[in-house]
């Protein structure tokens, strides 16, 4: 059933159609170059801080709610150092656990998914223990998390590694006592181009249809039954050409600049008040 989304169009700045009797000329001469010089902004902001993006659903983008949510998130980031990590980086999470004797629980794994925005932001770590694949989902802002460390900062060819479930176990086994590999500050983030081999089908999802670049060819392994039925499957990869559908769910530069300035303001206040010297808005690639 199609649920009708927001009734109101997101209130854009003054201009609607220019068919009013006086078509206001576009704001001329805002130098494109001036946008880049805004001090201290990170171009790859949506990749490093996916939780600070707006919700893809237009109806849920409310400035006041986002401001309150951002206040909580920044407070939390003052108390726990949330490092920069991407889908594909190896991350260790120590969280306090009521049941264990030592009251502390540590899990190391490769981050395969980062979902949702704001305080709801979740990331999933995957590891293979005694050749049993284990995935653990963590809320980034859950107060029981005590420490998050990025053992290996790297990216993969895809922004979603859910296919590791069907891949050979060797691709998702990481040693729990692996010591962190420091990422030289200022150098770009390495992209690990390794192509993953999958187990024999049946798979959890039809990987041969989706255009993942991180899997070497799935077509030969796919079961013949699915291949015969391929002409019936609904393949709508033309959706990626729909510019405005993409625009509706993606974030805009103005919004990013606004959020980053808010974070800088928060950071400056806290430094001025002498509460901490921690930096919130930071990027390993463009570290100055």
């Amino acid at each position, binding site marked *: 059933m199609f649920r009708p989304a927001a009734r109101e169009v997101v209130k854009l700045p003054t201009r609607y*159609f220019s*068919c*009013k*009797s006086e078509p206001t000329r576009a704001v001329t001469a805002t130098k494109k170059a001036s946008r880049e010089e805004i001090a201290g902004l990170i171009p790859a902001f949506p990749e490093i801080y996916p939780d600070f993006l707006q919700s893809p659903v237009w109806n849920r983008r409310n400035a006041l709610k986002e401001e309150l949510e951002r206040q909580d998130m920044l407070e939390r980031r003052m108390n726990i150092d949330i490092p920069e990590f991407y889908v594909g980086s190896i991350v260790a999470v120590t969280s306090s656990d009521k049941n264990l004797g030592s009251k502390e629980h540590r899990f190391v794994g490769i981050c395969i998914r980062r979902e949702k925005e704001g305080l709801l932001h979740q990331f999933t770590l995957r590891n293979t223990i005694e050749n049993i694949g284990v995935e653990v989902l963590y809320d980034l802002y859950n107060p029981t998390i005590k420490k998050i460390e990025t053992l290996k900062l790297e990216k993969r060819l895809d922004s979603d590694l859910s296919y590791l479930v069907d891949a050979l176990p060797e691709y998702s086994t990481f040693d729990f006592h692996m010591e962190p590999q420091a990422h030289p500050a200022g150098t770009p983030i390495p992209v690990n181009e390794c192509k993953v081999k999958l187990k024999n089908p049946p798979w959890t999802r039809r990987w041969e249809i989706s255009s993942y670049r991180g899997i070497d060819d799935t077509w030969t392994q796919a079961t013949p039954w699915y291949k015969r039925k391929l002409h019936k499957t609904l393949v709508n990869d033309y959706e990626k050409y729909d510019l405005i559908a993409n625009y509706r769910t993606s974030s805009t530069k103005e919004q990013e600049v606004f959020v980053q300035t808010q974070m800088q303001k928060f950071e400056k206040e806290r430094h001025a008040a002498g509460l901490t010297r921690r930096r919130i808005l930071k990027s390993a690639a463009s570290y100055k």
Partner: protein
Amino acid sequence: MNEARARFFLNLRQSIDPLLRVLSNKSAPPPSLGLAFDISGMPPATLKSSALTYGSVGEMIKDFSIVFGVPKYRTSKPKKVTRKFSFTRLLQPIDNLVTCPACSNIHPSDTICDACYSKVHKLTSEIKKKMMEYNPYVGEKQDREVYVKFKGESEAPAAVVKGKRVIELEKDRPTWFKKLTLKE
């Protein structure tokens, strides 16, 4: 109790009889239902004498008036109320007409004036015809801006043209189409 029931049947038969009598009247055109009721309003004394005279069932069906329309769905309350009370609101006067400042032609306020536009449209299509005179299959491309020059105009200064593709038009420049000046 039963004489009430008897009276009921009597009335029922009385009201149906005139209806059937009218239906059997072959010569008259199929009367609308309204007419039939007028007759039933007549004093009951004259009705009892005429009995139903349909030759056969087929004849009765052939008589077209059986299939008059009856409401299919129950009209909802808002629709009924709107029909009864809001006749003043159904027909809205068009009140967003404005006069065009240039040619005082009346047009809706959220649109442009069509008289002015028809002039612009004519000239635009002429320029467009000239602009489209290139053959993409041979490799010609629209890779330069276009500068429109009218008949009887001197060569435009190099600063304005600066590497644009010049298009010649046979007619002379209309007064309202200003020349491209440097400040643009």
